[in-house]
């Protein structure tokens, strides 16, 4: 049995390989999934841009290759069609959620996505924080990132409302959906408040946090959000240990501790297993946004169940169709290693089918097992899963990405404007100063 370190190293390396295998080297765009004809997800490009510096540091990629990969993507976005037409790449500095991997044009009539643009830009900022050499390429890289960040009109995305809208389409304008309750959007708000050119206005962040729910569930006090990934995505880039906005200050907690408790709540739910699904226990859990079986089909007890396909599964109200996401559990590693490592090892051992090419598939469903007892498993791999796994393993092993991004001016500024104080955000104490 490999040591924890060896296990994590192999999972992290395999996750990184996803990006190498699915990137289009001509434009730096990365496929959403490893399946045939997958479009690009701009968020996955953000994770790819974050992964290259890690790979350089770990010796998995030459620095020059990493710079070229990053430059290809950044140049593509700088030169992309920003007209907002139905076949453009973006508008107002934002980008459509899904793009053609060859042309970069919008596909699937997807929305101009605020959160996915934020994930893309977070990746770009990671690259600019790492590639700081005074070489022509790295100077260009930093200039591109600065340009892309400054171009985003976050204020426009408020649509004169209190909070940031989730999406926009050329066919109908802003989408109806809004953000309510705690979500992965904390990164979006931080980047939108840190903008030197088009920051969001007024009490936007406070209006969003006014929809938070602080709950005591299964004996844990935490800021409630059902799907596990919500407790991870912003944390990939931002070290929330010891820093507090007014909400967390009042609750005497922080977002890092909150993610730890969210992992425990997830485990507790699986132990209770209210819908009596196969496999659920203290070492097999993880309800999150993931792929899933989608057709009505007979399960082992020959009873039809509702299946949800790709959905944001959550705890404790579901939807829950017996589908679990191992990558989401692994991504809780920095917060709760004492329960995550046991769960990861258990899931690998009990359901080895969930691991192909050393990478976890998006999800598995032991209730929908075949005649040989093998669980339903999601085909191929998802870029979002591999990106968050890679970053969270790194943050667990070294805290390196967190350390790198602590110095990012726009993140510091955004956190400050959101009211975050304390911890590493305090100005450094200068020796001898009063």
């Amino acid at each position, binding site marked *: 049995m490999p040591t924890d370190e060896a296990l994590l190293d192999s999972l992290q390396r395999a996750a990184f390989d996803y990006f190498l295998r699915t990137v289009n080297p001509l434009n730096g765009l990365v496929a959403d999934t490893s399946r045939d004809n997958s479009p690009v997800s701009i968020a996955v490009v953000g994770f790819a841009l974050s992964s290259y510096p890690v790979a350089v540091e770990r010796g998995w990629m030459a620095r020059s290759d990493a710079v070229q990969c990053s430059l290809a993507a950044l140049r593509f976005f700088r030169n992309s069609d920003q007209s907002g037409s139905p076949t453009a790449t973006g508008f107002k500095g934002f980008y459509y959620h899904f793009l053609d991997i060859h042309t970069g044009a919008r596909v699937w009539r997807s929305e101009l996505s605020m959160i996915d643009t934020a994930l893309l830009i977070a990746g770009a900022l990671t690259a600019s924080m790492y590639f700081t050499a005074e070489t022509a390429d790295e100077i260009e890289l930093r200039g591109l990132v600065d340009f892309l960040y400054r171009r985003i009109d976050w204020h426009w995305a408020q649509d004169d409302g209190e909070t940031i809208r989730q999406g926009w389409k050329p*066919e109908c304008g802003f*989408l109806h959906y809004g953000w309510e309750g705690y979500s992965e959007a904390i990164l979006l708000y931080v980047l939108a408040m840190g903008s030197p050119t088009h920051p969001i206005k007024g009490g936007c962040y406070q209006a969003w946090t006014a929809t938070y729910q602080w709950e005591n*569930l299964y004996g844990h006090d935490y800021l409630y959000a059902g799907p596990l990934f919500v407790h991870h995505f912003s944390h990939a880039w931002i070290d929330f240990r010891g820093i507090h906005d007014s909400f967390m200050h009042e609750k005497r907690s922080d977002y890092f501790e909150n993610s730890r408790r969210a992992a425990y709540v997830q485990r507790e739910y699986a132990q209770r297993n209210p819908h009596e699904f196969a496999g659920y226990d203290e070492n097999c859990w993880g309800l999150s946004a993931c792929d899933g079986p989608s057709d009505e089909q007979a399960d082992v007890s020959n009873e039809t169940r509702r299946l949800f396909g790709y959905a944001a599964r959550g705890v404790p109200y579901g939807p829950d169709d017996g589908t679990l996401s191992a990558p989401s559990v692994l991504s809780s590693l920095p917060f709760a290693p004492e329960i995550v490592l046991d769960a990861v090892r258990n899931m690998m051992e009990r359901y080895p089918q969930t691991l192909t090419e050393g990478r976890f598939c998006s999800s598995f469903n032991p209730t929908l097992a075949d005649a040989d007892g093998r669980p339903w498993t999601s085909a191929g791999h998802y870029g979002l899963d591999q990106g968050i796994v890679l970053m969270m393993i790194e943050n667990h092993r070294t805290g390196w990405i967190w350390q790198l991004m602590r110095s990012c001016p726009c993140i510091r500024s955004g956190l400050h404007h959101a009211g975050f104080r304390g911890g590493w955000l305090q100005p450094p104490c200068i020796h001898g100063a009063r």
Partner: protein
Amino acid sequence: MPPQNNVPIATLQDAYEHARLANVHPAAWQNPKPADWYQLVIVGAGPAGIAAAETAAALGARVALIERHLIGGTCLNTGCVPSKTLIRTSRLYADMRNATHYGAQIPDDIRVDFAAVMERVRRIRSHLSRGDSARRLTALGVDVFFGNACFTGTDVLTVNDKTLHFKKAVIATGARPHIPSIPGLREAGCLTNADVFKLTELPRRLLVIGGGPLGCELAQAFCRFGAQVTIVQDMPLFLGKEERDAAQILSDAFERDGIEVRLNTDVVAIRVENGQKLVDLVSDDYRNTIAVDAILTGVGRTPNVEGLNLEAAGVDYAAGDGIRVDDFLCTSNPHIYAAGDVCLTYQYTDTATVSARIVVQNALFHGRERLSALVIPWCTFTDPEIAHVGLYVREANRQHIPVKTFTIPMHDIDRAVTDSEDGGFVKIHVRERTDQILGATIVARHAGDMINEITLAMVAGIGLRTLARVIHAYPTQAEAIRQAADAYNRTRLTPRIQSRLRRWLIRNTP
């Protein structure tokens, strides 16, 4: 007058309907000779008007009660009573189809006899109308008048050709369904709560416009009777003011029932072709047209202020918002009060009744009872039911009240599990670091009954610590409330207190 659609549905004239009308609007009723003056004249004999009349008469006042149409108002005739009766039968059908879930056999042939369902509605409504009968109110000492009330001065009104002078009056004329202004809707015809209970045949395909309480309840009921139901709501979730989890659970329940759920969707046009109604829907950039046989609207209610000549009475009102009242329910005329749906934001029967009692105290006995002091619960009687009382978390946050929620999923409650009714939750919101209850939301099959305990606690100022001491009969679903209180108590056992307890036990245990 309520707006008419072009497909009026005739009331079925059967023995039950004759009996109901004999109670709530007797055909041969002779209005009494008015007294010289009344201490209280009440316009409108819905729940608020009846409560005001009963209370004032019991306290010895000379009271006149005027009703234009049917005593009992919306609640008895076209609201709570018929809808809850209908919902009960629809639950039975849902349970029959779900029989294997309980280890029972699904009946071989589940056929819905919709005419029988509606006959039961008429029978039960007729039975309950006895409590609201004109004769019973007369026997209590109330002068009951049928006819159109019209103010002619600040202390006088007419009913048909009779003049009634009053010291005080209360307007309790209620509200009527609001018909949305969708092109083609009036021409195509639509149902509202005013006429849906007159149906004797089940529409094969039904569109419900509006995801408020009425739309949600009836969409689910008609679906369970076998209609192909589409419900359209222009917001991201149903029941706009309820919390997200509650509304999400309801959406999931609708989809499980087989309702076509269309959120974030607008109905933009309706036309009739070949006897069916074609409805154009738009959800962001997706447009489609569905064909239905009937349309039910449930998008709010309009207060009944027309025809009363309120200007002559010096009573301020706004056409959409109803009569303006202060916190004591007094209108701009100090002799005239209002109660119930015509003036309240919370348009519920229970609130109408309580507001009427406040009016009697304030109008006749110089009371200073305030509307704002009421703790008002409400419930949407879908399956599961969604009940709420007090503040929502977002309201507390906006008022900068630190709030913490104790959540008990119903799957943790033995009785919910034994009954296979474990979807839902009890959430009790308290002021942070205290046990003071600010509000609660309950989603459960019997949430409407369960919320009363929280309302009692809030009215009586009882906190979660005390609720934890209340023995709840086991096994009942209301135990979820005690478990929430227990969870609160556990949070008081901080590590510091626990270690002190341990030290004490070591010292004091022989």
